[in-house]
């Protein structure tokens, strides 16, 4: 039991955990972390947001691979 009360809502706490996991798995870029957490917690992440986040991460990863190959 924590002695300092965590005043964040369950949604906010879970959103932070989920965001960290997605970034660790390389599925999402860390640059949009705050936007991701906010939308996750508020239930405002739409299908197009998810596609954009994952496509951006994949594109970034491919670019890094290509620049590494060169």
């Amino acid at each position, binding site marked *: 039991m924590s002695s300092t009360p965590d005043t964040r809502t369950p949604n906010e706490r879970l*959103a932070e955990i989920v965001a960290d996991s*997605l970034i660790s798995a390389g599925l999402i870029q860390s640059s949009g972390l705050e936007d991701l957490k906010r939308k996750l917690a508020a*239930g405002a*992440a739409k299908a197009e*947001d998810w596609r954009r986040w*994952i496509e951006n991460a994949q594109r970034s990863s491919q670019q890094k691979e290509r620049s590494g190959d060169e």
Partner: protein
Amino acid sequence: MNKRIERITLTRFRGATTRTEIVFDQRKPITFIFGENGSGKSSIVDAIDFVCNQAPGSLADRSSTKPKDHLPAIGHKAKDINVELVCGGRAWSAKFSGAKIMSSDEATLPVAHVLRRGRLLTLIDATPAERYKQLQKFIEVEGVEASEQALRDATRDQARTLDEKTQAKFEAEVGLERFWVDEGAPGAPDQNALDWAAAQRAADLDETRARIERLRKLIDRLDAAAQARDSLSRAEADALRKSAQVAEARRAADAAAGIGATEAMRLIELLRDARGYLEASPDPQDGAACPVCERPVVAEDLRRRIDARLTDMTALGELRDELEAANRAHQNAVAIVERDRARMLEAARSLAEAVGSADESLPAALPVDEAGLRKLIENVLVTRDALIARRDEAQKSVNQFNSINQFYRRIIQSEEELREAAALRHGLERALDIVRRERIAFIQRVLAEVRDETNRLYALIHPDEPLGLDQLLLDENKKASLLQICSFEGVSDVAPQAYFSESHLDTLGFCLWLAVAKLSSGGDAVVVLDDVFTSVDSAHFTRILDLLMAECENFNQVIITTHSRQWRDRYAAQQIPHDKTAFVELQSWTRGGGIRASRTRVNVEALLEHLEASPFDRQIVASKAGVLAESLFDWLTQVYECPLPRRRGGNYTLGDLCNGLKRLAKQLVIRRPADGDGQAIEEVSLLSFFNAVTELTWIRDQVGAHFSLRGAEVSDADVKTFARSVARLATALACPRCGGLAQKPKGTHFACGCAKTMMSPLQLN
């Protein structure tokens, strides 16, 4: 900032038939509201629920009730209701808007969790879905769940997109395969349709396209030449017809004039000229010379004769007009023939040029004169169908090439798109898996925390009892379903309803609810317990009290309603620490008076007030002093387990208690703060205090309890001495800081709620 409810005002709300204001002591984290059944406790709790949660309170759990109809006080309507609540210096109000409960400044409402006795059992003795519903607002992560659903939708959409792209690629492959098979599957089995298509793409179709263009040009020119030739033929035929019409008109005119047509025409012209002369000179003098024959003429006669002659010549004139028209038409036809001839020759030469460059095995020698050119058109026209067939054949091979190329490009492009779509789908699926797992794990962690906290709280109330909550689990196979697994006597995985007593189930339900409220509120909530503790024995009373004293630190405020007089009496007897608790006492409800509340005074305070009251009521003072002395002695004999006469029913007289305390009185010492800051400690031996009381206890019987002539002989001064002795003892025993009695064993002594006052010894020697 202190976010405790300061006061709540009920107007025509439930039992509040008159305007009722309940004031809470801001300095105390716990407020007890005591009242017998029907005094209005639930009305106050419902009012808090009404404002803070916009909920109908206890009516929600009752069948055949409608909040709009049954929340108004008897005889009033929903529109008459108003509830005002002041918390942390801010005010909110709530009323009905139609059938809906509306609170002011909804976004900033104080957080209030309300637990009613009726819901205690529901928490434990419920289906997993109902249990989830009960705890939903504490563990719900609806925002993340909505985002997860959007991710699920995106994953499903992407799977559909992938299927569509796969289908498109398949269709392109089938199309290409068909071409390949139609061509005899060249290269099979070493090569497939795609290999073949790749090779086909390399083919040079420039010559074929050029030949198509040449053939198209040749056919176009042939058609143009044939058309020009036909136009010329039609023009020539027309010119011949027109020529014949001229000859016919001339013959007709000659026959009508009896003279040669030419001469007749000249005469008519002469007569018309003469008439024109006369009209231009309308009044020549008679006898003037004729300008033609130079003989004298009479103008009028001459005019008359000319008209007569011209009238005779009219028919001839018409014939002359027809002849002229025929001549003009013939001349035009001849001109058209010449024009069309020129066009035909130009088209034929253009055709000859196309024939020369077509390379299609056509006449090699190209004529230059009209007859030769006409012959060329005839000769080439004979081959027109063959030329069209050659052009179409060549076009077909180009079209096939284009189709193969298109299929090939679609297949190659589809492969790239499929790779990207599959990667995105894979990414979405992985993300969905992570979000789902983290959500379930998060809730399980919360539930594990809840379980551990529930067990901890339960153990405080029921120490050393083999009961407890092993697990709270989300049912992964069902949405919004919460499983509970308990252990009993070392046997795990049992349903608590089957083995736990009702009071244990109550305690378990209470601990579960409190644990969830505590873990989810982050310390920023008011907790309201509506008649949750009913019949509690002495041992459990102390433990529940200790638990509440400790747990109130985790909330802004704890409000407890109870109909159990034990709580009220223990408060009045200072057995509940006063530094953390306040008591509001409700009087009996009446329709005219509504809910009436007053502050509960501790016994010693009430006694001192009566001591000072005028006129002095000796019976009340003697009675209250006796009851206070009795409650103190009863408490002490229990704390120290003093020997008392064993009686059926466990009832003891004041005399029994005095005797039982004789040994203890000699040993009892109070150490307590002597000043405000608690630095100095004073030590008080209580023997003299006891003696002062026990010597006068007979006053309670003779003045305060019975009719007795001996009692009449007791002076008011003696009654006051007795009362003051009891008050002094009570004051000596209570902590000057927290107002509570030292009743919690701590090392070598008992300590009060704030631990500043100590009572020793710990055990009777």
